[in-house]
């Protein structure tokens, strides 16, 4: 169980670093949570005069939202190193990983955890899920719970893939963090609301280009069973793990190719 032991050791250290600045980190986590909550509050304020919009209750939209928060929390818990990959490469820390007898991706993933973001998004996600699920009377059967967890993992992996494809560019010393943030966070912003609110072109974008639709909209249909799902292929509802697995596998291939390129060209910044 070497990998697990090593992972736990890294986990212990990253946690220790975070706990060093307890006050500071708790404040940041709270700030992140409040920032993310703004979206929810605005939605509630906007809709408090209307019972339904386009057939959606407010709780249903917030339920949709909860997927985003929880899967992002999971993503950031496991993949902070991928999110901050540019720093890792440009600071030269990445070269250190190459001289250790452990898998490179493993080190990237294990060596950094942004607990503040994980906590901020996670707590908000759980609150939202708990509130909306009981309001909507969602029955938590064993298979339902399993499905929800599977969808969260898939969602985290889809988001990781988006970040990882951007991080691959670092191997060519091309900076894409800006572009990535632009695509990722704007897509996320759009995905906060039902896809049916948007024109077809944007729907297609969130299905085929930046597949955020599979992070929340389609999986949520399993629980909400909205009639508008008829406009899409019903298989989309279950496609999240497939999209996640295929995407992540592809991205890993590209990443490994980039890694090879990196070791043959070197970090040209030095």
């Amino acid at each position, binding site marked *: 169980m070497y990998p697990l032991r090593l992972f736990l050791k890294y986990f212990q250290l990253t946690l220790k670093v975070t706990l060093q600045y307890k006050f500071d980190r708790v404040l940041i986590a709270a*700030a992140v949570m409040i920032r993310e909550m703004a979206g929810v509050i*605005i939605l509630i304020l906007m809709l408090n005069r209307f019972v339904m919009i386009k057939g959606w209750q407010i709780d249903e939209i917030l339920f949709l939202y909860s997927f985003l928060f929880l899967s992002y929390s999971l993503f950031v818990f496991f993949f902070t190193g991928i999110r901050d990959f540019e720093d890792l490469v440009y600071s030269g820390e990445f070269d250190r990983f190459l001289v250790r007898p452990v898998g490179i991706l493993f080190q990237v993933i294990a060596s950094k955890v942004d607990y503040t973001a994980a906590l901020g998004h996670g707590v908000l996600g759980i609150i939202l899920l708990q509130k909306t699920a009981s309001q909507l009377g969602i029955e938590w059967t064993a298979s339902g719970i399993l499905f929800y967890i599977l969808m969260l993992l898939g969602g985290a992996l889809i988001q990781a893939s988006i970040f990882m494809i951007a991080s691959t560019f670092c191997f060519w010393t091309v900076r894409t963090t800006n572009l990535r943030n632009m695509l990722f966070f704007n897509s996320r912003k759009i995905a906060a609301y039902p896809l049916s609110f948007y024109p077809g072109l944007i729907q297609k974008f969130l299905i085929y280009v930046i597949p955020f639709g599979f992070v929340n909209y389609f999986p949520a249909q399993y629980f909400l069973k909205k009639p508008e799902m008829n406009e899409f292929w019903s298989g989309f509802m279950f496609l999240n793990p497939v999209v996640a697995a295929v995407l992540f596998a592809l991205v890993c291939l590209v990443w490994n190719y980039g890694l090879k390129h990196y070791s043959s060209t070197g970090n040209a910044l030095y």
Partner: protein
Amino acid sequence: MRAYLKIAQKSFRNNLVFRAEYFAALLNTIVTILVNLAIWRAIYEEEGGLDNLQFSLIVTYVILALALFQIFTMDEYVIEKKIKSGLITSDLLKPLSFRLHLFSFHFGALLYRIVLLLIPTLLLYSLVYRVLPPFSIEMFLCFLLSVILGYFVMYSLNFIVWLSAFWFYKTFSLVTIKDTAVLVLSGAVIPLWFMPQQLVHFIKLTPFDTIFFIPISIYLGQIPMDQLLFSLLRQVIWITVLGLIGHVLWKLATRRLIVQGG
């Protein structure tokens, strides 16, 4: 005066260099407006009122508010960075007023945002949606005045938050909380007339609505003539109050810097 104009000019040019940041900001504005309009569209479609004036009013409001919100965005970490790097002491020794220096920097960035963000965004959305013209020419002039006052309210509020860097190691939390408060309470996303009465009463006690809500309401002719002057006066009062707080904090902060030796 010359020196400050130079700083503003440099700041303007500096922004031009970062093209990737520019496209990111432009796309952010466009998408934020798009998402918000999609929701309002969904709401009014439900009510069957896409053609009525109410919808055009809200569309105009959202586009104007979010476009203004985008250009009122400032680099929040200038002071923090200067304190961290220790540059603050040498800046204070320069024969320039630090606060005017800082303002010139932000002013240059503001002009840049007006030319390259506000105008393209407004043009784009006025092609797609029916954006209402100003209520009247007089109101438009009042609107312009009110926008300027709104900017100063925002700036004075920001300045207070930035100054906290003299006391705290990191200002991220405070800045983020302030941003969120502005986003929700200033009417940048939802007009106050959609908010619960009690919340509106609360907001009226704060400076937040004087940043975006008052100027845009004037543009749309939603503020009756008899209340117009009062609204502008509220903006002026808040600039004075926040400015005074900022001034006192600034004095305290610089004294602290001298005592502690940077």
